[in-house]
């Protein structure tokens, strides 16, 4: 009856756990695998350039915060999604490097794993660990109130990057640094027009539902097509959740049921890479028979342009580090910071992909 506590069974359990650990980590080799995002090193990676600033200005005095010397400060960075996504990995790396360059005393980094409650807890924890300035990549536009309130009470300024929060500017947060996802969608439509010569039946692979990136990249594309490119006919739009294998499955189904699809617009590079495999499986040539345009600028996707499988990629630059710390320095020096600081995103296409491959993340 008391077999549950027999030491022998704990031993089996413990040894199987050990074996699992050893088997999986013991003797891995670098092999000849392809790295999705090879470390960009010093050579790779273009910094962000501000395209336009808008909204009301916010100064240190307006915000009610105290002057801070970043060189001796504790800075917290709350990342939203796991660093397994190339975009997030590049973003976190960029913040770390910029923190080093700014010589901060200590950089605290947390990852919310895409869970809002965890991000709130992460931010509260960093505040209790003495963070004096926070950079937050919000999981969601809404719902960070408890965390932002806690920061306000401690007089800790918050800078949001890549996703804007709906809270009050200059009260709950200093400014928003990010890309214009709507504009990315419009530029993807331009690139699609360029790639197809203006005549195509287009299928759209949507990102996750209920996500502002998905909504903006989609409405930007569709509104630009409606306004400028009557020859581009959108025949299907289906979600593939920003994932490569779902992009592949959904594209396979669409190509099967609708064989005259001649172009695919994917909301991110991973789904576009899935679509490349799907087009090949359907016995067609990606990039030629079926034109593919996506958004992000990951190394794999830019390489696919070089290989002729993807036609164009609109960049969404993840390297927020230098701009974030530059903005913070200006803010603490008493300069006014505008509400929205929108960055300039590049475009990769068949003309520049080979030369610009080093800039991909």
């Amino acid at each position: 009856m008391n077999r549950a506590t027999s030491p022998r069974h704990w031993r089996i359990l413990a040894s199987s756990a050990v074996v699992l650990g050893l088997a999986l980590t013991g003797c891995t080799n670098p092999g000849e695998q392809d790295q999705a995002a090879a470390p960009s090193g010093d050579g790779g990676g273009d910094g962000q350039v501000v395209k336009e600033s808008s909204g009301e200005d916010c100064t240190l005095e307006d915000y009610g915060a105290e002057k801070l010397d970043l060189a001796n400060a504790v800075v917290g960075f709350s990342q939203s999604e796991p660093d397994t996504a190339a975009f997030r990995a590049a973003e976190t790396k960029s913040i770390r490097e910029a923190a080093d360059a700014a010589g901060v005393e200590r950089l605290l980094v947390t990852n919310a794993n895409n869970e809002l409650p965890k991000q709130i807890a992460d931010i509260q924890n960093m505040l209790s660990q003495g963070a004096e300035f926070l950079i937050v990549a919000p999981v969601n536009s809404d719902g960070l109130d408890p965390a932002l309130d806690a920061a306000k009470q401690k007089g800790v300024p918050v800078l949001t990057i890549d996703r804007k929060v709906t809270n009050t500017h200059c009260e709950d947060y200093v400014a928003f640094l990010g890309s214009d996802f709507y504009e990315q969608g419009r530029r993807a439509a331009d690139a699609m027009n360029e790639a197809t010569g203006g005549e195509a039946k287009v299928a759209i692979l949507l990102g996750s539902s209920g996500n502002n990136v998905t909504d903006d990249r989609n409405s930007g594309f569709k509104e630009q097509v409606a306004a400028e490119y009557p020859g581009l006919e959108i025949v299907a739009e289906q979600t593939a959740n920003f994932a490569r294998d779902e992009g592949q499955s959904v594209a396979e189904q669409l190509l099967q049921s609708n064989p005259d699809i001649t172009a695919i617009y994917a909301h991110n590079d991973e789904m576009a890479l899935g679509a490349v495999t799907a087009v090949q499986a359907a016995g067609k040539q990606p990039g030629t028979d079926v034109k593919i345009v996506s958004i992000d600028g990951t190394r794999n996707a830019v390489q696919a342009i070089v290989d002729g499988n993807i036609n164009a990629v609109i960049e969404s630059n993840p390297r927020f580090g230098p701009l974030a710390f530059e903005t913070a320095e200006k803010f603490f020096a008493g300069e006014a910071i505008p509400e929205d600081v929108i960055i300039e995103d590049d475009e990769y296409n068949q003309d520049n992909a080979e030369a610009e491959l080093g800039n991909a993340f």
Partner: protein
Amino acid sequence: MSEQVAAPPRPAAPEPRRGRRFDADWIRRNGVYVALVVLLAINVVITDNFVSEGTLRLQLIQVTPVLIVALGMALVIGTEGIDLSVGAVMAIAAALIPLYIGYGTAVAIGMAVLAGGISGALAGTLVGRIGVQPIIATLGIMVAGRGLANLFGGEIKSIRDPGIVALGSESLLGVPYVVLIAAAVAASVWFLVRRSTFGRELVAIGGNKRAAELAGLPVRRVLTTTYVICGLLAALAGVLLAARSQASDPTKVGLLVELSAITAVVIGGTPLSGGQVRIAGTIAGALLMQLITATLIFHDIPDSTAQIAQAVIVVAAVYVQLGRRKAKS
């Protein structure tokens, strides 16, 4: 103790087919096949390009990962257990492929499948020998396993190994390798359940564990083995998914596959209360789910509507099952 012995055991094996009656029991046994045929017929009428070798072949290819996981899940559910760790195991297996591919295709696949076996042994030991509730034991492995997959996998990696790529995209005599493998797995699991002592013991334990123990059946060994098989199959599914997408994304591979697998098993007529394993029903259940997904994509139904439609179909299927159990008791 003696009272417990005297307690009448629940039916331990599928009872012999009694009538040709069109009752609730008939619906539960055959509802999934009827639904599959109806949905196929609807598609033949309303979907362009549906009746083509390519479309049908695509459904068979795409169903393989869920089907293979569901077959393992059917065994576990047959023991009145549940395995929530299958998605994480798929992710671990997929993450190990690029890590070991330098040693060759076979080694990489072997390591991936081995990891599934080890994870299954862990679950089986927790459930079978230590007596942890299956949902708790496998929930723990699910959470830890996903973390482990991220740890091994790191960023999304492309897999260019010709062996792996061929496994995912090539065919033998016109049948894709992944479909052949799924068919072989289905046949093996069917044989295991219907023709082997192990299968009879498994079903007996699921029907009434106490009675099985008292009858001297090797309960712990059978339970452990069942979870090991489920882990191995989940890992195999992870390998095939990685081979097909030629990539390994540890955060997204196998996400929520446990729910798809459980749904396929349940709408296929296997009761969650254990004591029965229906292999053909599970296959039909997985195909039905695949066909629902495909139908919604074919007709460009928006995601939000598609999710609701799927939920309605699943709830309806489970309701039919409940109706049967009430009728029986």
